[in-house]
């Protein structure tokens, strides 16, 4: 809500902003508790409020503890702020009872105001600014309810997580085999493993695969996969005369993968 107090001070209860209409002083933003206190007093204009009522409304209702001294400090700070804005003696102390706020209060708007003193013309910019102000207002409105312990817990958990996951994530990438390519040959799902970093002639690869499949009577069923490692030179046997790698894994988990190796 936006209020005009004594015709000079504009107060926005949504974000706790106070500024003089004539612009003679810079805008002041109240802290969250002071803002709530201010709003409570304005809504009870000219009605005496007991200390118990204020303590209950501002703290006890939310499960928080506070004291008379604490309340006196906030009232004192609010008084000084209002005095700075030219509103002298609007808050009066009622001995052994509480406080009363007395001023001419006019409700200007029921809705929170998005300050737009920059006179931005573009609709898009307006909506971005509006969103930003709403987000800023929300954070400011809620930040005091996140205690230091909450934040400490969150930060500790994050640090702990990063510490553990750093090594884990690194090793994940380090020790998982990547496929160079995945394709189908004669209804077989083929996953090509190639760590040479060189471009392969896929015609040669496919031909080599077909020869291997025909040689070993492989007819792929559903979910069967062939893992194939192709030599750089594209020959069936590598230079050391050891083998090429060709593994046929069926979709049936009970069956082992059959690996084929050809040696000279």
């Amino acid at each position, binding site marked *: 809500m936006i209020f005009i107090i004594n015709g000079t001070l504009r107060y926005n209860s949504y974000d706790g902003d106070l500024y003089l209409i004539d612009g003679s002083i810079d805008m002041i933003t109240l802290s969250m508790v002071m803002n709530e206190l201010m709003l409570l007093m304005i809504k009870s204009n000219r009605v005496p409020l007991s200390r118990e009522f204020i303590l209950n409304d501002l703290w006890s*209702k*939310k*499960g928080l503890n506070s004291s008379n001294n604490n309340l006196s400090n906030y009232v004192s700070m609010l008084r000084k702020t209002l005095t700075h804005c030219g509103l002298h003696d609007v808050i009066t102390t009622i001995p052994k009872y509480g406080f009363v706020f007395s001023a001419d209060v006019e409700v200007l708007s029921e809705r929170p105001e998005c300050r737009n003193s920059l006179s931005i013309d573009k609709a898009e910019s307006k909506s971005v600014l509006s969103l930003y102000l709403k987000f800023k207002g929300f954070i400011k*409105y*809620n930040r005091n*309810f*996140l*205690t230091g312990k*909450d*934040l400490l*817990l*969150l930060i*500790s*958990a*994050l640090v*702990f*997580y990063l510490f*553990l*996951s750093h090594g*884990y994530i*690194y*090793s*994940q*990438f*380090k*020790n*998982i*085999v990547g496929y160079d390519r995945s394709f189908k040959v004669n209804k077989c799902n083929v*996953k090509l*493993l190639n760590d040479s970093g060189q471009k392969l002639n896929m015609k040669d690869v496919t031909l080599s695969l077909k020869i291997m499949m025909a040689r*070993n009577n492989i007819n792929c069923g559903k979910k069967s*996969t062939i*893992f194939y*490692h192709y*030599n750089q030179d594209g020959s069936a*046997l*590598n230079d*050391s005369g*050891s*083998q090429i*790698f060709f*593994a046929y*894994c069926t979709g049936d*988990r009970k*069956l*082992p*993968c*059959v*690996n*084929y*190796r*050809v*040696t*000279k």
Partner: protein
Amino acid sequence: MNINTLLRVRWRYPVWIISLFILMHSLWLTGSQHQRFTCRAQLRVESSCSQCEKVNVFDLFIAINENGRGYLLISGSRVDSEEVRSNFNRVIDFTYSKQGEGYNLRLNKQEVTSNKVLSDLKIDGDKMNLKMIDYHRYLLSWRKDNLLACAMD
């Protein structure tokens, strides 16, 4: 109680839940470093020399235990240079260290050097790698170009 008060009071609960989730996930990451599983593969080694035509078949069983140890069981039949076929069954113990979803294996060196069957597999070193290739298959590798796909049980 208005909606703003409700929002403010509850704003701290997501923080606690997020913190708890992060801590639990961290612990899960630590706990998942050692998992127990077994993996099976069959290897058919075909000699392609012009004057001979022989196929040796090996069954491999890899067991990864939780205590950083495991074993490799190799069984099958082989044809030696005198064309005599014989059955064999060998167990090779190893220790391992986990890296992500993969494992670095270190075989018992004495067993590697004294085991003639392993020469057919060209296993002459004591280091192997077990890397994940999909959600239930691993790729066992040793030396260069020596690869073997196995499926988890």
